[in-house]
C-alpha cells in the first residue's frame, strides 16, 4: 500500500538549504590550540609498517621510532651506539655476539624482547614468509647464515662472508629492527598497520591516507622522548605544506628549494639547507649507437658545462659533483677530474669518432623543474657541436621504468638520481653488469668493476676498501658513460621552537630525539 510522506518539494529544498548552512557554521579554533605534541608533514602515504616489507623512508622513519635495534644511530650522525643490546662484539669476521638488556618489553602485552625475537626478525629477510613473500631488502642480509640463540638474552649472528657495512648500514638501519615473534605470528597482516615494538614510541592511531600518531611508550626506559605525541600528517601538495608551516599548523616538513628560499626570514620559522647525498648524473647508453663509441661519449662530456647546468637546475643552491660518492661519505674520490667545457676538444673527438654530424639524441628525464632546466641547458650546449637533443620528459612512474628491460635498449641520454647509502659498496652495486636491464641504465658492462665491487663487499680493512671504491669510480670515469652533475641539496623547514634530529642525508628523521626549545 502506498502511503503519503511528509516530504514536500518545499521542505526538501528548505532542508538542503539548512544542511548547507549548517555545514558553514563556525566552530572553536581547535587548530590553533597549543599542544605538547609535534606535527610532522609527510609527503608520501604510509604504506607498510612491517619492516621487511616497508616501502620507503616515510615508513622507515616511523619504524625506527617504534622498534629497537641492537645498535642505533645517535642523533644527527652516522655513528651508532648500543640500543637493545647491552654488549656486542665482532668475535670473528663471520660472527657477531650480542647480549640483550633485560626487561625490554614489547607493547600490547607481547612480553619481553629476547634473543629469539632477534633471530626471528633477522631471518625473516632471508627466508620467504608463509605465503612465499620475500623481503625487498633481502640483499641487506645476504651474508646472514643464521642467528644462533644461546639463551633468553644472548645469541650470535653467523655470516657466510665478512660484511664491513653490516654494522652501520644493516644493524643500525631499518633492516636491523627487532620485532616480536609472538606479535607478528598473532597479528598476521594486521601487524603491517599496528606494529608492536619496544622502542620509544608506539603507534596509537593509523588512518590510511591521512597519517598516524605516535605516542610515548611508557615502558621504554632508556630515555624519555621530548614530545608526548608525534602526529604525522599526509600532505601531498608542497605548497599546502609551506602554507601550513607558515600558519603554524605543522611543525616540521621537507621543502622544495624554491619554497625554502621564500621561507627564509619568515617569522618563527627555521629553514635548513644542506648539501644532499643523492647523486645525480647524465647517463649514456653504451650499447646504443652512436653512444657505443667512446669518442662520442667523451665529446658529449667535453661539450657540456656541468656548472651551468647545475646553476640552471638548482638556482645556485646545489654543489657540483665530480664522482659517484658525494663528499663526506666513505670512499669519496676527492681527486676526481673536474671536467670543464671545451668545445674544441668536443669537436675534435666527434671528428675522430667517424660519426656523421649532425646527430640527434633523445634525453629522457623526470618532469621536475630542476631536471627540465638542466635538460634545456644541455640541449643548447650540445647543439653547438652538432648534437641535436630531443627532450623526453616523463612523470615518475613512466620515467622509472624507462631503462628497464627492453625499453632500456632504446634509451640514449638520461638524467638519473639515486639515494646514496653510507655503504659505498652498496652504491656501486647498481652499476654492475648484472644490473643491466634493471638499474644499470648506462649498460656499463665491466667485469673488472664487478670483481672489485664484490671484493670490497667483504673487505674489513677500511683503508684498502676505500682504495677499492676509488678504483670503481675511476673505471666509471674511464667509460665516460656517466657525467656527474650534483649531489643536490635538501631543505627542511620547521618552527623555531623545534630542534629536529635527522641523519646527514636529510631523509631519515629521528623523531625520538626531536626536542622542544
Amino acid at each position, binding site marked *: 500500500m502506498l502511503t503519503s510522506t511528509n516530504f514536500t518539494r518545499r521542505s526538501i529544498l528548505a532542508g538542503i*538549504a539548512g544542511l548547507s548552512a549548517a*555545514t*558553514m557554521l563556525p*566552530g572553536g579554533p581547535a587548530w590553533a590550540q597549543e599542544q605538547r605534541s609535534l606535527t610532522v608533514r609527510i609527503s608520501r602515504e604510509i604504506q607498510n609498517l612491517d619492516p621487511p616489507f616497508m616501502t620507503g623512508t616515510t615508513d622507515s622513519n616511523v619504524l625506527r621510532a617504534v622498534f629497537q635495534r641492537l645498535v642505533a644511530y645517535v642523533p644527527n650522525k652516522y655513528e651508532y651506539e648500543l640500543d637493545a643490546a647491552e654488549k656486542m662484539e665482532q668475535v670473528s669476521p663471520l660472527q657477531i655476539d650480542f647480549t640483550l638488556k633485560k626487561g625490554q618489553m614489547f607493547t600490547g602485552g607481547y612480553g619481553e624482547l629476547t634473543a629469539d625475537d632477534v633471530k626471528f626478525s633477522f631471518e625473516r629477510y632471508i627466508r620467504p614468509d608463509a605465503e612465499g613473500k620475500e623481503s625487498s631488502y633481502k640483499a641487506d642480509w645476504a651474508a646472514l647464515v643464521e642467528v644462533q640463540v644461546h639463551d633468553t638474552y644472548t645469541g650470535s649472528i653467523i655470516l657466510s662472508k665478512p660484511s664491513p657495512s653490516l654494522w652501520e648500514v644493516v644493524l643500525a638501519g631499518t633492516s636491523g629492527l627487532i620485532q616480536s615473534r609472538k606479535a607478528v605470528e598473532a597479528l598476521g597482516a594486521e601487524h603491517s598497520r599496528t606494529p608492536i615494538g619496544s622502542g620509544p614510541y608506539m603507534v596509537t592511531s593509523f588512518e*590510511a591516507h591521512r597519517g598516524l600518531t605516535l605516542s610515548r611508550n611508557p615502558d621504554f626506559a632508556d630515555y624519555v622522548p621530548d614530545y608526548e605525541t608525534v602526529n604525522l600528517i599526509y*600532505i*601531498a601538495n608542497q605548497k599546502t605544506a609551506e602554507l601550513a608551516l607558515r600558519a603554524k599548523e605543522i611543525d616540521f616538513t621537507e621543502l622544495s628549494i624554491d619554497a625554502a628560499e621564500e621561507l627564509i626570514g619568515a617569522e618563527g620559522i627555521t629553514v635548513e639547507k644542506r648539501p644532499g647525498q643523492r647523486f645525480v648524473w647524465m647517463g649514456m647508453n653504451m650499447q646504443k649507437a652512436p653512444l657505443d663509441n667512446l669518442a662520442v661519449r667523451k665529446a658529449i662530456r667535453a661539450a657540456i658545462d656541468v656548472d651551468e647546468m647545475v646553476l640552471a637546475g638548482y638556482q645556485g643552491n646545489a654543489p657540483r659533483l665530480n664522482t659517484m660518492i658525494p663528499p663526506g661519505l666513505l670512499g669519496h674520490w676527492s681527486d676526481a677530474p673536474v671536467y670543464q667545457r671545451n668545445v674544441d676538444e668536443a669537436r675534435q673527438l666527434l671528428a675522430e669518432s667517424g660519426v656523421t654530424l649532425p646527430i640527434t639524441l633523445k634525453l629522457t628525464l623526470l618532469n621536475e623543474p630542476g631536471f627540465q632546466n638542466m635538460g634545456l641547458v644541455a640541449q643548447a650546449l650540445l647543439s653547438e657541436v652538432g648534437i641535436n637533443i630531443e627532450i623526453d620528459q616523463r612523470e615518475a*612512474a613512466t620515467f622509472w621504468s624507462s631503462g628497464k628491460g627492453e625499453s632500456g635498449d632504446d634509451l640514449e641520454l638520461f638524467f638519473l638520481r639515486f639515494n646514496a647509502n653510507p655503504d659505498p659498496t652498496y652504491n656501486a652495486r647498481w652499476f654492475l653488469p648484472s644490473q643491466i636491464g634493471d638499474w644499470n641504465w648506462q649498460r656499463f658492462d665491466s667485469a673488472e668493476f664487478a670483481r672489485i665491487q664484490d671484493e670490497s663487499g667483504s673487505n674489513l680493512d677500511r683503508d684498502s676498501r676505500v682504495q677499492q671504491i676509488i678504483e670503481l669510480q675511476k673505471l666509471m670515469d674511464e667509460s665516460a658513460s656517466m657525467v656527474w652533475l650534483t649531489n643536490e641539496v635538501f631543505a627542511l623547514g620547521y618552527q623555531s621552537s623545534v630542534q629536529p634530529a635527522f641523519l646527514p642525508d636529510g631523509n631519515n628523521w629521528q623523531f625520538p630525539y626531536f626536542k622542544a626549545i
Partner: protein
Amino acid sequence: MDTNWELFRPFGAHETEGAGRLRLFENFLFNRILTAVLSVFGAMLVIVVLLNMVPGDPATALLGPMATPEYAQRFIAEMGLDQPIYVRLWKFFSQVAVGNLGTDVISGRSVNAIVWNALPHTFALALASMGLACLIGIPAGVYGAVHKGSIGDTLMAMVSVVFVSVPSFILGIFLLIVFSVMLNWLPVLGVSDNATLGDHLVRMILPTVALALGWIGLIARLVRTSMLEALGQNYVRTARAYGLRENMIHYKYALKNAVIPTLAIIGMGIGRLLGGAVLIEIIFARQGLGSVLYDALQARNFSVLQGSVFVVVVIFVVVNLLTELSYSFFDPRIRYNRR
C-alpha cells in the same frame, strides 16, 4: 515477437489510472537501471583497458629501486597484472558481485575499507559545496533576470565568468594565502585529527568555498537565462494581472519552472564532486575519494585504482538516475511515459 497483452485482458478489468502510472514508472525505472548497469560495465571496461595502456611499471613505482626482480615479478602477479584484461575484468566483477572491491596489495587493506573511509569526506564536501552554490547562485540568477541590464546584473555577469573560468585549485590557494596565512582566520588543512564537530566544520569552509565558487557562477548564469524565458511566459503576465507581489511571481511561479534545466546541471555537478574533487582535496590535504584516486594513479596501485574508479562510476550513474527521477518531483507535468 512483441505481444500486446492488453488485447487478452478480460472485459472490465481495465487498469485504474493510478496503476497505469505505476506501471509506466516501473518500466521507466527498469530501463534506467538497466542502462545504469550497462554504463557501469562499459565504463569499467574502458577504464581497465586504459589503465592497461598507461606506461610505467607499477612494481617500480610502488616498491622503488630496492625491490628484487623476483619480488617485483611476484608483486605484478599479486596485482593480477600478468593476466589478460578479460580475466581481470571477470575476477573484478565476480568480487564486486559479492560486495568485495579487492585488496590493496601493498598495505594488505581491503579496498572497501579504503573507499568507505574516504567517502564521508567526499560526500560532506560535495554536498556542502553544491548547497552553497545553489544558495547563492539561484538568487543571484533570479536577481540578474529580474534586473536585466542593471549595474548589478552586469557586475554579476562579470563575477560569474571569473568564477567559472578560474580553476578551483587557484582559488583554493588564493583563499589559503588570504584567510589562513595573512589573516589567520581559518586553518590550512582541510581535515583534523581533533574530532570535534566544530573543528571539522571550520576546516570545511575554505575547500567548500573554493569548490563552490565556480558552480555559483555557472548556476547563476543558467538560472538567469531560464528565468528570462519564464518571465516572458503568459502565466507570469496573468499573475501580474491578478496583482500578485513580484517576489511571489519570481520565486513561487517563475523560478519553479526556470530551475528545471538547472537541476540536470546540479545533478551532474553533484555526481562529479562525489567522484572526487581531486585538486581541492589535494590542496587542502583532505583524504577524500579524489585524493585516493590521485595517489593510486601516481603509484600505479591498480587494485585501489580499479575499486575506487568503480565506486566513482556507480555514484555518478546513481546520482544522474536520481536527478532524472527528481524532474517529475519538481515539475508534476513531467511523466515517465517519455523515453
